[in-house]
């Protein structure tokens, strides 16, 4: 199996991890090195640049399918995936060939130099040679949206099996800003000593949500409790006189946070793990919303830099003096962290996070956790003092112990079909609370219910539509849902005057009528208390 379209089909035709591993493994052994490298790139989010607007693509596809554009849009709304819609609509090809990755990408890039007429001829010619799967893959490469149900972890596992290289080592090799253009299979994956790259971060150690009483974790003295901050998980690399800031989403965000420019440590190359937050004049991290203003900007105006200063709350040290510390227990890594922090400017952009006070007992931590919102935290993190720094999400040593969410009972007023997997169900709802006799919309949510519930609600929506606005249906205000959320903020952009963080449907309150839903006053009370 050396064609990417065959790999795609094999992965698509199974939900079993073992079968996916086998398919990937086979591909990594039979495809050309260029194809393999691009496969890794695509599966780890390093997509080729988008060369076409989706508007053009839709127009050409409708034309090739011989249908009017409105009908194309209806199909898209029902299928939920542009690449798939096009693949299904095109007339069947007379003769087809498999799709190979590297040549296709080279081809797409060559298109960037062409004018629209030539691009169109090019795209049509490709469509004419591919079967439905081939077209789907080609369209996905064209539109840049690629998900194949393969996590980076699964891909790394397959790669480890196919190459015999250790998995954690591969995970590290695949981090950072390598690109198929500037790398090759050998130097990235196989070489004994991969080219030292001072920008390469370590795979993040991730926590699971605590799903049983903390007492089950054993003696509290074996654990460390930290606040769980509501910022961006980040790694700060100070190496060879350079600074690199990586987000957990493996995005290099150094330029967006000039606060960290010019930092260095006398002790040598250092990597710190922590939470990026906006620091308030009250000496506390600010709500996530404040950070959002910063993330979106590639260049930061001076005023924003002053009003929303970014800080890294550093809680772990992964490298110090050029030494990889990840195998050391947390307790020892924290000593190195302290040494590193001592060598950084104070006050400066890197801080030790505000500590969790009190005794090492589950009782103390349980009651401390209840005060998390006052500390601008989401709850606690529990970390085993003897544990190494794992690559990825491994059960057992790191736990998130979050606060129970805030919640409010609201009436559904608009419904919209979901995307992808849920394209034919109504899953995206707008919710409102009462303000006197009127309903004021305040949140959108699309998750939290079971598929069976969504099906039931979909049938209800079809029968209770009052008006349609494109894909959105205004429904009879009748169904009540408990909306859970993590935080609440004033927001002049919203009619209700508030913005919620991570709203979701906690449950469908079939026991309540619309009249029994909560009010805007209720929402404002939550805002006053937690905003």
């Amino acid at each position: 199996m050396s064609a990417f379209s065959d790999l795609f089909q094999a992965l698509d035709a199974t939900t079993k991890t073992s079968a996916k591993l086998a398919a990937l493994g086979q591909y990594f052994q039979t495809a050309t090195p260029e194809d393999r490298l691009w496969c890794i790139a695509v599966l780890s989010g390093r997509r080729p640049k988008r060369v076409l607007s989706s508007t053009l693509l839709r127009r050409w596809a409708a034309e090739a399918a011989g249908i009017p554009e409105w009908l194309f849009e209806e199909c898209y709304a029902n299928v939920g995936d542009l690449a798939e819609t096009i693949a299904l609509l095109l007339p069947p090809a007379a003769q087809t060939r498999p799709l190979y990755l590297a040549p296709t990408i080279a081809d797409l890039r060559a298109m960037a130099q062409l004018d629209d007429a030539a691009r169109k001829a090019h795209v049509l010619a490709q469509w004419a040679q591919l079967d439905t799967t081939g077209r789907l893959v080609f369209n996905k490469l064209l539109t840049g949206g690629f998900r194949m149900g393969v996590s980076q972890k699964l891909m790394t596992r397959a790669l480890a099996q196919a190459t015999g290289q250790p998995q954690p080592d591969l995970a590290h090799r695949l981090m950072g800003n390598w690109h198929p253009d500037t790398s090759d299979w050998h130097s990235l994956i196989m070489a004994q000593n991969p080219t030292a790259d001072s920008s390469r971060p370590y795979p993040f150690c991730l926590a699971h949500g605590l799903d049983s009483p903390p007492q089950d974790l054993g003696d509290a003295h074996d654990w460390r409790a930290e606040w769980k901050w509501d910022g961006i998980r980040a790694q700060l690399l100070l190496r060879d006189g350079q600074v690199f800031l990586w987000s957990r989403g493996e995005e290099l965000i150094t330029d967006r946070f000039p606060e960290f420019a010019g930092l260095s440590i006398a002790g040598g190359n250092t990597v710190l793990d922590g939470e990026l937050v906006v620091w308030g004049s009250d000496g506390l991290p600010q709500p996530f919303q404040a950070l959002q203003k910063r993330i979106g900007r590639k260049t930061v105006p001076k005023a924003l830099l002053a009003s929303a200063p970014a800080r890294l709350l550093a809680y772990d040290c992964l490298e110090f003096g050029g030494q990889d510390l990840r195998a050391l227990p947390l307790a020892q890594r924290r000593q190195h962290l302290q040494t590193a922090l001592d060598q950084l400017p104070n006050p400066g952009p890197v801080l030790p996070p505000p500590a969790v006070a009190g005794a090492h007992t589950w009782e103390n931590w349980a009651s401390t956790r209840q005060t998390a919102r006052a500390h601008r935290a989401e709850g606690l993190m529990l970390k085993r003092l003897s544990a190494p720094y794992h690559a990825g999400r491994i059960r057992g040593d790191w736990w998130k112990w979050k606060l129970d969410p805030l919640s409010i009972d609201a009436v559904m007023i608009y419904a919209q079909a979901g995307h992808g997997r849920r394209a034919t169900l109504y899953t995206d709802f707008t919710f409102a609370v009462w303000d006197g006799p009127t309903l004021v919309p305040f949140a959108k949510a699309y998750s939290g219910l079971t598929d069976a519930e969504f099906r039931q609600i979909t049938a209800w929506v079809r029968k209770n539509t009052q008006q349609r606005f494109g894909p959105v249906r205004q429904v009879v205000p009748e169904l009540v849902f408990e909306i859970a959320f993590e935080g609440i903020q004033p927001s002049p952009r919203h009619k209700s005057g508030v913005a919620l963080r991570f709203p979701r449907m906690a449950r469908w309150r079939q026991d309540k009528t619309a009249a029994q839903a909560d009010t805007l006053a209720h929402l404002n009370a939550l805002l006053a208390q937690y905003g």
Partner: protein
Amino acid sequence: MTGRGVLTFTDRGIYCPAGDFYIDPWRPVPRALITHAHSDHARWGHGRYLATPRSLAVMRHRLGDITAQIAEYGQVLRIGDADVSFHPAGHVPGSAQIRVCVAGQVWVASGDYKTENDGLSEPFAPLPCHSFITESTFGLPVFRWQPQPRITEQILRWWQGNRAAGKTSVLGAYALGKAQRLLHMLADGPGPILCHAAVENTNASLRAAGVALPQSDVLTPECSAKTHPGALIIAPPGAIEASWTRRFAPTEVALASGWMGLRGIRRRRAMATGFVISDHADWPGLLQATKETGAENIYVTHGYTDIFTRYLNESGHSAQVVPTEFGTDDDDSAGPA
């Protein structure tokens, strides 16, 4: 206007004033003409039923002792002032389009139909008419079926692969129509076919009504991977559950439905494998059928009604949407959910 009023649309269903009867009504009526035995079309509680012999065989099994009269294909019956005849719809064995002629005006209610000959159902043939009531379950151009032999090949390859890996194949299919069609398609397959009791009951009714179905074994509590190694089990999707599949472990489960053409729906049903096969017409089939009736007026029910209607109107037909309450109990009609 031609023939307005031969059939009308009421809150109980399609009604013929000249003959005082309903077609596939969804609330109890004195006289019901039934296009086919799917439970969203053949409901309980009507005074008298009129249907084809094969539909009646299944309906009697499901609805018990009903008062019914047989309509053979092509036979013209005079009901009040209406001439009524039943014609093959190709949907499932015994399914019919119902042609109603009053004072020279011809209306045809298609019920559910498909244009491809599946080798088992009496093949669909278009009926010239003034007004045509069509379904539109798959009335979107993204639905285009592959020829049946291609699907047969795909399923056989899957079954063969499962056998080679020592696994039992479990194929989800609606008990009336799809299941028998699969049985017919896969009769020469590499191993024994077992039918879930719900499927086998329908098989028995149809065999008794003269449908030439291949031999099949019924799935009993005694059956297991030991007694039927490498078997293929046909079961209604709702009946695929841990209790009996465990006896056949390891298994591979797949679903046979037109909706499997959409990846999102396949994934929502947690199906790794889906075979795209439907007992309803695909987009080209719907267009071809409506065109070949030569109908001046087209009434669209059951499915993507708004979209199909708009498309027909823009391509020079005169079409309108008719609200109905079909589509709750046949796995394709039941829709994408």
